[in-house]
């Protein structure tokens, strides 16, 4: 393979046939302005050092790469390392991106930020940076997600954000995105839209990837230091795909590294009740970009199901669509039930309570590791911590607070 991955997307935001700018006219000028601003600062040493200072002193980076010895040995195969994004301030990888976008918002002189959120982690990370910079913050969240991720809703409110429960459509992440877009169209002059994943119109997929690429950059150095060689496999969960692209990106040119993106299979791919567009969908256009989508034969977007709100989305970042087509990344799926078992395993073997999103990656590792030799290594992106999921887990396991 001789692809120069750093050359993608092209200047119009295309990853092969995917990505692009399929946005309403009112947003085109704002997107162009954002593209230009981002181009001008992305290699600016002052901007980069501002970000790296914030990531170190405020977020707590670098996050550790932890060898999960007891869990690995129980599986009897490869050594599994966890990239501890759950130890970031606010509890997930999402803050890597909001730190960067908030600095851009400040540079563009915007007084108000908006965000969409599924699990609430991106909403919390946005409310956090807004509080720190003294910006007004409005977070759109599907009404169903407001219920199942109640602890994060409380955190956002405490941080001073307004949380809008979106009642339209399927009342989950995709509808929150629609509503955030409508807000942005209306308030485009003074508002910066912090998209939380590697989707949306250009430049978001490229920009969010660049902000999240710190995950793989650190992990690559850390594994070389600990093992003296590259890992044999990477595993990350994929909803929109920002934690996955963050881990994968710096490893894409390393041909010996097998890469696995794990989609939520919900009740099972065969039931149709899942959120796995790369495994079961086909290409189309939604939320500003062309990518794989869960859709019917007439191009209507289908309702999705996943136990984890953060993965419950019918689309996926366009770079993942492209990486699937060119065969660089293997996209697989894990059911709700398997993810729950992953959640229990990591909690009991390692004393680490993972987010239900990350539990999908954990569960795939339990399948992959035993098929590998003991001298081989896997890095799993532990993208977030499970505190926010206590309501869901309590309900399933039958205990009360």
């Amino acid at each position, binding site marked *: 393979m001789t692809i120069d991955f750093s050359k993608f997307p092209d200047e119009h935001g295309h990853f092969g046939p995917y990505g692009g700018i399929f*946005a309403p006219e009112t947003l085109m000028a704002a997107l162009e302005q954002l593209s230009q601003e981002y181009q001008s600062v992305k290699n600016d040493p002052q901007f980069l050092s501002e970000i790296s200072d914030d990531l170190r002193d405020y977020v707590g980076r670098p996050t550790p790469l932890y060898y999960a010895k007891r869990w690995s040995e129980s599986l009897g195969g490869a050594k599994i390392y966890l990239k501890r994004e759950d130890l970031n301030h606010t509890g997930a990888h999402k803050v890597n991106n909001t730190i960067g976008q908030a600095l851009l918002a400040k540079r563009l002189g915007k007084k108000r930020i908006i965000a969409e959120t599924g699990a609430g982690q991106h909403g919390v990370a946005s409310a956090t940076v807004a509080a720190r910079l003294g910006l007004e913050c409005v977070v759109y969240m599907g009404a169903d997600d407001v219920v199942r991720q109640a602890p994060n809703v409380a955190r956002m409110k405490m941080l001073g954000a307004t949380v809008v429960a979106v009642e339209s459509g399927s009342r989950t992440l995709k509808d929150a995105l629609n509503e955030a877009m409508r807000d942005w169209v209306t308030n485009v002059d003074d508002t910066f839209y912090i998209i939380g994943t590697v989707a949306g119109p250009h430049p978001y997929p490229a920009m969010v990837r660049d902000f999240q690429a710190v995950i793989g950059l650190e992990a690559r150095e850390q594994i070389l230091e600990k093992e003296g060689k590259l890992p044999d496999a990477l595993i990350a969960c994929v909803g929109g795909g920002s934690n996955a692209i963050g881990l994968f990106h710096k490893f894409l040119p390393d041909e010996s590294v097998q890469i696995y993106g794990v989609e939520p299979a919900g009740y099972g791919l065969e039931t149709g009740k899942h959120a796995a567009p790369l495994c079961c969908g086909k290409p189309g256009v939604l939320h500003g970009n062309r990518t794989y989508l869960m859709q019917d034969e*007439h191009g209507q977007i289908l309702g999705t199901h996943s136990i984890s709100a953060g993965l419950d989305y019918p689309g996926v970042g366009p770079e993942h669509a492209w990486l699937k087509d060119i065969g660089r990344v293997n996209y697989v799926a894990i059911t709700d039930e398997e993810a729950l078992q992953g959640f229990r395993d990591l909690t009991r073997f390692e004393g680490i309570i993972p987010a239900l999103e990350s539990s999908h990656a954990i569960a795939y590792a339990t399948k992959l590791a035993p098929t590998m030799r003991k001298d081989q290594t896997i890095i799993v992106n532990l993208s977030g911590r499970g505190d926010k999921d206590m309501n869901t887990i309590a309900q399933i396991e039958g205990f009360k607070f």
Partner: protein
Amino acid sequence: MSRIQQKLASLKAAGKTALIPYITAGDPRPNATVALMHLLVEKGADMIELGVPFSDPMADGPVIQKAVERALEHNVSLDDVLEYVRAFREKDSNTPIILMGYLNPIEAMGYEAFAAAASSVGVDAVLTVDMPPEESVGYLPALRNAGLDRVFLVSPTTPQSRLAAVNEKGSGFVYYVSLKGVTGSKELDVADVTAQINRLKDKINLPIGIGFGIRDGEAAFQMAQLGDAVIVGSALVSLIEANAHQDLYTIELAVGEKMTEFRAAIDRADAL
């Protein structure tokens, strides 16, 4: 000349402004649409904008979102919308029809197949909200080859530098979005729209239709003095919503009355 170009040219020659009402196809139920289209013409529509339901109408306000949801409860698809147009054309070969919607249903059908089908049933133009000129490679030639006009949106935030592409790639008319917002929102700022239309006329040779936020006769009266066409949507669709569970006659009465208000206001402006 296309049917739209002929219509706008003859209206212009007569000193008249076009009235273009919007309804969502299949709202409140599939068997209402063709009848409502004929009613709109009877009450003074010069062209009809027919909304293609899409599950995620991200540029639409609550009124049209709910119209789309009503249509999708009946699983109204792009195929069905084309069938309504075919049925409408059995009795009306004169009134231009513009399909307005989002890209994904067209992508799912395929650009070429869609353009051929739309043209064969008597569609005149297509306006796709999330298809800016920059991404229209493939889409534009398919429509052009099928003889369909390509309507693009221009908004208050569109920079002068982008207008040339709209002028070159669009045809039929340009749709000026008269406010920053979703369909059906806020009050219009007449002074702002006036300044904006003058700005557009420097770069755009195509006729200019004005839409978004035109709620009543007074707003239509103001806009008719600025544009070549006035587009009204949410004001009509909210009446369909209010009468969604009534019989067709009741819906027609409500929509017809509002259309009469718009038509009279535009005629009044044209007589100035």
